[in-house]
C-alpha cells in the first residue's frame, strides 16, 4: 500500500493539530484498513485516535441523556447497562452487526463514519463518484444488488451500511465533534448526506473535525419498553442488512403516543419519514396501521437497477419491526439479535 505517516497523539489538541490534508483518523481500523488494503483509500497520514483520554466512556448526563465517547468499542457499548436501560434497540442493532471480533475492535466514531459497502467504491479500479468525483458510477448496471432504493441520484446509488446508525437516527441522537474552530453538534439525522450531485461529500463532518462523542437525548428512554431493531440478511449472522428497521413506540393507555421508524440499508443515510411516524399517533397498534406506516416510509422509493425487490422487502421489514415493537421489548436480548429468527432469549449480559 501507499506509504503513509503514522501518528499517535496523546491528547485531543495534539490530534487536531496533527491533521493536515490527506489525513485519516484511525479508530478500530476495521473499515479504514480494509479500504487502504484495496487502495480505495490512500491517506498520506494516519492519526490513531484510540489513545485519546476520556473518550472511551459512557456517561449519564445531567438531564438523563447519555454521552457516549467516540472510542467506546461497539461490543462494550452493546453491553452497557445505561444504554440497555434507555435504548435497548441500539444495543440490538450493534449486536446484529459484523462479528464479535470486529465489534471488539470497532469504535463508535468509526461506526458512524464507516463507508458504503458498494463493491465498486471499495475497488479502486472502478469508476466511482463517491471515491473519485466525476469518474462515474460503475454500480449502475453493475453486479451489486444491494443498492439504494431511496434518496439515490444518478451520480450514486450507494447505501449507508451501518446498523448502529439506524436506531440512533430514530432516537434523535446527535454527534459531538471537535475541530480547529471548536466544538459543535450535528444531529444524526443530518450527519450522512444523500448523494445528489456530490456523493463524495459523504457526511456533514469536515475532514479536519474529529468525532468525540455521541449524545442520546433523555427522551430516548421513553421508548425503551417498545423498541426493536430488525435486520433481514442473507445469512443468520455476520452479514450486512438487505433491509433493516428500527421501530420505537411510546405507548399510553394502549395507544401510540409517539412513534419512531427508521430504515437501514435503503439509502445513503438512515431513512426517516415524518409522515410514516405521525400517521400512527393516537392509534391503537395493529397490523393494518403498521402496513400503512411502512407504506408511507417507502413512499418515493425507486429501484436503482434490478433491486426493486428491496422496496417490497423494506416495506415488510418496517411493518414487522413495528409489530415487534408493539409487542414489547423482550426482557432479555434475543439470542440472535435483530434476527427474524431471534425469539429464543439469553441474558443480555451472557
Amino acid at each position, binding site marked *: 500500500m*501507499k506509504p503513509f505517516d503514522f501518528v499517535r497523539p496523546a491528547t485531543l489538541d495534539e490530534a487536531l493539530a496533527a491533521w493536515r490534508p490527506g489525513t485519516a483518523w484511525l479508530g478500530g481500523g476495521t473499515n479504514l484498513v480494509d479500504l487502504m488494503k484495496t487502495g480505495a483509500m490512500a491517506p498520506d497520514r494516519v492519526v490513531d485516535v484510540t489513545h485519546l483520554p476520556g473518550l472511551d466512556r459512557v456517561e449519564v448526563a445531567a438531564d438523563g441523556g447519555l454521552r457516549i465517547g467516540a472510542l467506546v468499542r461497539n461490543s462494550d457499548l452493546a453491553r452497557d447497562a445505561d444504554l440497555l436501560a434507555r435504548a435497548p434497540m441500539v444495543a440490538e442493532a450493534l449486536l446484529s452487526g459484523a462479528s464479535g471480533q470486529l465489534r471488539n475492535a470497532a469504535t463508535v466514531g468509526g461506526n458512524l463514519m464507516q463507508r458504503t459497502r458498494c463493491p465498486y467504491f471499495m475497488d479502486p479500479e*472502478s469508476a466511482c463518484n463517491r471515491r473519485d468525483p466525476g469518474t462515474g458510477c460503475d454500480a449502475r*448496471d453493475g453486479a451489486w444488488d444491494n443498492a439504494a432504493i431511496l434518496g439515490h441520484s444518478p451520480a450514486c446509488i450507494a447505501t449507508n451500511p451501518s446498523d448502529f446508525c439506524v436506531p440512533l437516527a430514530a432516537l434523535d441522537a446527535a454527534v459531538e465533534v471537535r475541530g480547529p474552530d471548536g466544538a459543535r453538534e450535528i444531529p444524526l439525522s443530518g450527519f450522512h448526506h444523500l448523494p445528489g450531485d456530490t456523493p463524495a461529500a459523504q457526511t456533514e463532518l469536515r475532514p479536519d473535525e474529529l468525532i468525540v462523542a455521541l449524545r442520546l437525548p433523555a427522551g430516548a428512554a421513553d421508548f425503551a419498553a417498545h423498541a426493536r431493531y430488525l435486520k*433481514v440478511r442473507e445469512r443468520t449472522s455476520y452479514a450486512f442488512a438487505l433491509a433493516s428497521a428500527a421501530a420505537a413506540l411510546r405507548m399510553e393507555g394502549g395507544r401510540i403516543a409517539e412513534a419512531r421508524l427508521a430504515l437501514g440499508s435503503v439509502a445513503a443515510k438512515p431513512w426517516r419519514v415524518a409522515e410514516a411516524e405521525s400517521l400512527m399517533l393516537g392509534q391503537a397498534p395493529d397490523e393494518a396501521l403498521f402496513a400503512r406506516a411502512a407504506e408511507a416510509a417507502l413512499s418515493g422509493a425507486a429501484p436503482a437497477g434490478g433491486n426493486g425487490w428491496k422496496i417490497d422487502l423494506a416495506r415488510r421489514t418496517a411493518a*414487522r419491526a413495528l409489530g415487534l415493537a408493539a409487542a414489547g421489548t423482550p426482557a432479555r436480548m434475543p439470542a440472535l439479535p435483530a*434476527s427474524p*429468527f431471534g425469539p429464543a432469549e439469553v441474558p443480555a449480559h451472557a
Partner: protein
Amino acid sequence: MPDTHTRFGSSSGQPATRRDGLAKVTGAATFAADNRPEGMLHAVYVPAAIARGRVAHLDVERARAHPGVVRVMTPADHPALAGDPDDKPTRFSFRIEVLQDDTVRYAGQPIALVLAETIEAATEGARLLSPRYEAEAPRTGLDDNAPFDVEEPGFGAPGETVHGDPEAGHAAAIHAVEVTYETPPQYHNAMETHAVVAEWDGDRLTLDTPSQALAMSCAAYAHLFGIPAENVVLRSPYLGGGFGSKAIPSGPMVLAILAAQEAGRPVKLMLTRRQMFGPVGHRGATRQTLRLGCDADGRLTVIDHETLAATSSFEMFLESASNASQGLYAAGALRSAHQGVRLDVGTPGPMRAPGEASGSAALECAMDELAHAAGIDPLDFRLRNYAETEPGTGRPYSSKALRDCYDRGAEAFGWSGRPMAPATMRDPDGTRIGWGMGTAFFPSPMFAAEARATLRADGSAMVETAGADMGQGAWTALAQIAADGLGLPLDRVEFRSGVSTLPDGGVAGGSGHTATAGGALHAAGGDAIRRLGELAAEQPDSPLFGAGNAGFEAREGRVHVAGDAGRGDAFADILARAGMSELVGSGRASRPDADTRDYAMNSHGAVFAEVAVDPDLCQIRVRRLVGAFAAGRIINPRLAESQLMGGMIWGLSFALHEEARHDPRTGRIVNSDLAEYRVPVNADVQGLQVLTVHEDDTHVNALGIKGVGEIGITGSVGAIANAVWHATGRRVRRFPIRIEDLLAPA
C-alpha cells in the same frame, strides 16, 4: 504372499484426535508462508482488472523506482521457462498463465510481478505499474458464447453416456418433468490462501507450498524448470484447506519460483483473498436440464440429464454434472450429456465433489419434482427406484447400504410425519417450515501410492508416505492404519509425511486419499512384518524358528505365526539377534483393474433437511440437517463425522449462499472477499446430525475404505432446496436460493 494384514488391530475404528490439533490451536504449526529464509524477497503480482483484451501499458519505470523494488517481471521482460507451460507433463496439468504474452484471458490473471525487499514495497510497486488495457467485451455468463460439444469434461469423465433407450423411456412415462437448474461460479476459498516460498540451490529447488499432490506437483515444476523431478523438494506439512484447489500448480506459484531463480534469492509469494478469485481454480457455472419420467407406479422410465458448463477460453475443465445421474437410480434409460461454453474466466478445476455437487443438486431437486408430480412421498419414490445393481451396466455394487441410510436417516429425522402438500407446515408464530431430502452419492476411487515402514531396534516404528493433510485429519487416520499394519499401538509409531522426498503418497483428492495412502502404509507394514518374521524364522533362538511358510501376523509389538498368537517373538528381540538397527518394508497400493471393471464402487447416503422460512421477510434458515452415510469402513469416527458434517455444511453453503458475481462490463468478480462471498457462519448451522452405517467391502480395497471427504455435499443441496419448496410452495431453480427469489410474486 499370504495376505496377512487385512485384519484390523486396535487403532482403526478409534476416535483418535488429530495429531496436528495442538500445533494448530497453539499456532505452532508452520504453514508455507510462515517460512522466512535468509535473504528472502517478496513477490506480489498484478491481477488483470479486465477479463478480455490486452495489456497496453505498464508503468515499469515508476514501479522500479519505488524504494525496495528489486525486479519487475512483465510479459515483455521475464526469464524464460525451460518447459512449455502449454504442455501437459502430468495427468492433471492445466495450461497456466505465466506472462506468456500480453493477452488477458480472465480477470485476476497475473499480468506482471514485482519483487521487493518488503511485502509493502512489492505491493506498492505492483500498484504503481498502473496497467492500461485495450479491453474487449468479456464473456462471463453461460449465454455469452456458443456452446460446444464435449468429449471429455475433465479428468477422464465421459462427455456423454447413454444406457437403454431414452426416447422409449420418455414415451413410456406417465408422469414427467422437464426442469432447468442453474448453479453459479463458486470459489474454494480455503482459509490459507495459496502461497509459496521458493529457494534455489543451483539446479535444486526447495519449495514450501501447500500441496494436495506432492509428487505430481514436483513433476510439473520439474518439467517447467527443466530439472529432474528428484531435484525438487516440496514441503507441505500443513495445509489450511485445499478442496481441490491445491492439487495443481498455478501460474502465480510458477512465477514466484521463476523470480527466485533469476534473483538468486529465496522468494515468497502469498495470494491475497481477492487474488484467490481467478488463477487457482473454481467450480464453473452450470445450467442443467433434466427430463425425468416415471410410470404409474413411480418407477423411473428415464433420467435424461444435460449440462451446459463453463470453462475458460484456453483450457478444458467442466463440472461433469450430468454424470451424477449415472449409477444411482434404477431408471429404464439413462442419458448424461455435456456441452461446454468458453468464457473469459480462470480455468475451473476440481472443487470438492467436482461435478457430483452440482449434478446432485439438480438431480435431487428434479427427483423431488417428479415425486410430487406423481403424488409419491420423496423417500418412497427413491426407494421405488432403488438400484440393486448399477443401472445401465448391471454391475454389482462392491457394497451398498443405502437402504439402511434411508431408514436410519428417516427415523432419526422423523420423516414419516411429513405432510405431502407443500406450504402446509408452520410454527405457532407463522414461520413456514419445510422438510426435504436427497440421496448422497459419490464414487470411491483409488489412486496409486507408495509407503515405507521402518521397524526400529527399540520395537517402535516409523512410517512414511508423502501424503497431504488439508485439515481433514488424514495424517491421524493414516497413522492409525499404519499402526495396525504393524501391530503396534499408535503411540509407538512415528508418522512422517508432507514432504516430497518420502515415498509418493498419491493425490489427496477424490476422497481417495485414506484408501490409497492408507493402503500403501498398511502394505508397507505388512511387508516389514513379513521380512521380520522371515528373519526370525531363521534365528534358532526365536520361537518362530522354522515357521517360514505359515505367514505372519503382528500384534502389540510382536510377530507371531498367523492364527497362532501363542507362537511369537518381539520385534526388538528379533532385530537385536540379527544385530540390525532397523528393518525396512515397503508397500504400494492401487486398485486391481479387474475390480474396477467388475464392480461399481460408491459411497451412499441420505440427507434430510428442515428449513424455516420467515413468511413475510423470506429469510431462510436450515434448522436441522440429518445425514446417514454408508462409506465402507470408518477408520476414525470422529474425523469421519467432521468430514461428513463439513460436507453437509458445504451443501448448505451451495444451496443458500455461495455465488461469485461478475461485473458484466469488466468481467471482474465484485464480491471477491469473505464479507460478500458468503459461506455459512456458525449461526447458520444448527441441528446437524451425522449417522454412519457400517459396510464390509472386500472389493473396494483391501482395507474396505471408501472415503468420506466429498459425499456430504451431495444430497444436502437438494435436501435443503426441496425443503425450501416444501416450506413455501416455491420452486427456485437457481442456486443459491435467495430471499428475493421467495419474495417475488409467484
